[in-house]
């Protein structure tokens, strides 16, 4: 348990808050709105949102095609999560500070923080030059980013495994693979599951984005066509509802798994 009230550190907190506040206000004053009628645009967006959410309709594609689009996007999300998770599991074991040498841990964690620092869409576009736009580039790019994310998450889950259990098994002469399969992985299991599902949730959203921005197809591409090409608000609404329902369902699952993994730690 953290103590709820901490001694105040006046020299940083207000200065950080002040900096953020100044940047925010200055941004509004200085950035170019290119002569857009801001008040009018807010009114228009308000009307757009009402049409969008209250009168959804499929126009250029059927509801069945929209379902297929969502399934394809889910498939991309799942595929990239699994492909990222497998190497990340091995990498995570090597990168956990309590299991391997410190220099290896630092090296691997540094490497994946580089991978994660590049936004996923850039990875997909970079891989698309070699593999062509489409599902291959999207899968490879998203897998790369998932690998970086999961390796860090897994190694931290391994580091939380009770040190005593590992030492006891080692002292009783258990082999290295036995320690991993009997103590480390079962101990970290709820955390591993929770992180993996959370990444699946993220990857669904990312797959929507890759459909819209990097030609990966699926419901994201439908969204891009409806909003950026046909300018059909009711169609955008239908797609937004579809994505919202799936994303909220995934979020519910991720929250349940997270609570289960936290309960396991107490």
């Amino acid at each position: 348990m953290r103590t709820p009230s901490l001694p105040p550190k006046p020299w940083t907190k207000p200065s950080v808050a002040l900096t953020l506040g100044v940047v925010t206000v200055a941004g509004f004053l200085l950035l170019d709105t290119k002569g857009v009628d801001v008040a009018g645009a807010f009114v228009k967006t308000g009307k757009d949102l009402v049409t969008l959410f209250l009168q959804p309709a499929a126009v250029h594609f059927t509801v069945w095609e929209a379902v297929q689009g969502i399934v394809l996007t889910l498939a991309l999300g799942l595929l990239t999560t699994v492909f990222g998770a497998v190497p990340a599991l091995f990498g995570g074991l090597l990168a956990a500070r309590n299991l391997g040498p410190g220099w290896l841990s630092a090296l691997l964690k540094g490497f994946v923080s580089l991978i994660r620092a590049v936004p996923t869409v850039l990875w997909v576009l970079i891989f698309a030059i070699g593999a062509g736009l489409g599902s291959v580039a999207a899968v490879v790019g998203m897998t790369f980013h998932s690998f970086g994310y999961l390796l860090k998450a897994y190694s931290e889950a391994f580091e939380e495994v009770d040190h005593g259990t590992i030492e006891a098994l080692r002292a009783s002469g258990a082999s290295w693979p036995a320690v991993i399969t009997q103590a480390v992985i079962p101990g970290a299991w709820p955390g591993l599951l929770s992180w993996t599902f959370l990444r699946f949730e993220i990857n669904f959203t990312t797959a929507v984005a890759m459909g819209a921005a990097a030609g990966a197809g699926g419901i994201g591409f439908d969204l891009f066509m409806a909003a950026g090409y046909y300018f059909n608000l009711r169609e955008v609404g239908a797609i937004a509802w579809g994505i919202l329902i799936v994303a909220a369902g995934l979020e519910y699952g991720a929250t349940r798994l997270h609570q289960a993994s936290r309960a396991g730690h107490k």
Partner: protein
Amino acid sequence: MTGVGAVHKIYRQRQLWGGVGLVLVVIVTVGSALIAQFDLVEGFAAFPKALVWMGTNFVPDARAWANLPKILLRLGETVVVSVMATTAAAAVSFVLAILGSRTTRFHPGATVVIRALASLGRNIPVVAWAMIFLLAFGQTFLTGFLALFIESLGFLTRSYLETIDETASGPVEALRAAGTPWAPVVVHAVVPSVLPSLASWMLFMLETNIRSATLVGLLTGTGIGFLFDLYYKSLNYPSAALTTLAIVVVVLALEAASTLLRKVIL
């Protein structure tokens, strides 16, 4: 005897469930690969090829370095917009969370409405919000700002609300029992007990937003995303590489800064 039998039964059950789970994951993965028309062999062959291509062609050259001032200007714009969206969302989220938290709300109905709105904000992907705002706000920084703002608002409102529910109820009840009115309760009990975790959530959101901002910019023609897209589409890969490098440096610097800030705040 029965004890050993029970342990063996647990192990066998664990192995059985592990086997069933593994088979399920494999089936779903293969199904996803078929749906996404992802060829595993092609995908794995593309990966090393793409890396080799990156190493030889995706490298900044002298012409790219001449673009550095332009890149830094655009990147600065993107960072400022991310900070603006995060700061504004954090401020509004705090008010919403106070109105919606079990311990400080005026009416239980407020919790339902605020939670539903927050879910809408975060579960509709940021790209969808960007496409929606693009219709009225055009290619200005406001489109990206609003998309990131709504997404952050949805995420932070939920996190703040749950933080206040979890950590502030004790101090609030203590002050309430002493007959303190609502406003002083908020100022003296809620704010000091939750501020460190709220700040930590906000820093996390800022890190996320810097990455999302690139994607949003790519779609809406603003900021660093626009510049990357420009270089990418005109096959100016050295400049696209330098843009990527600049993003990586900023993201890593921001991560380091927020780690440092967390240590000070928490």
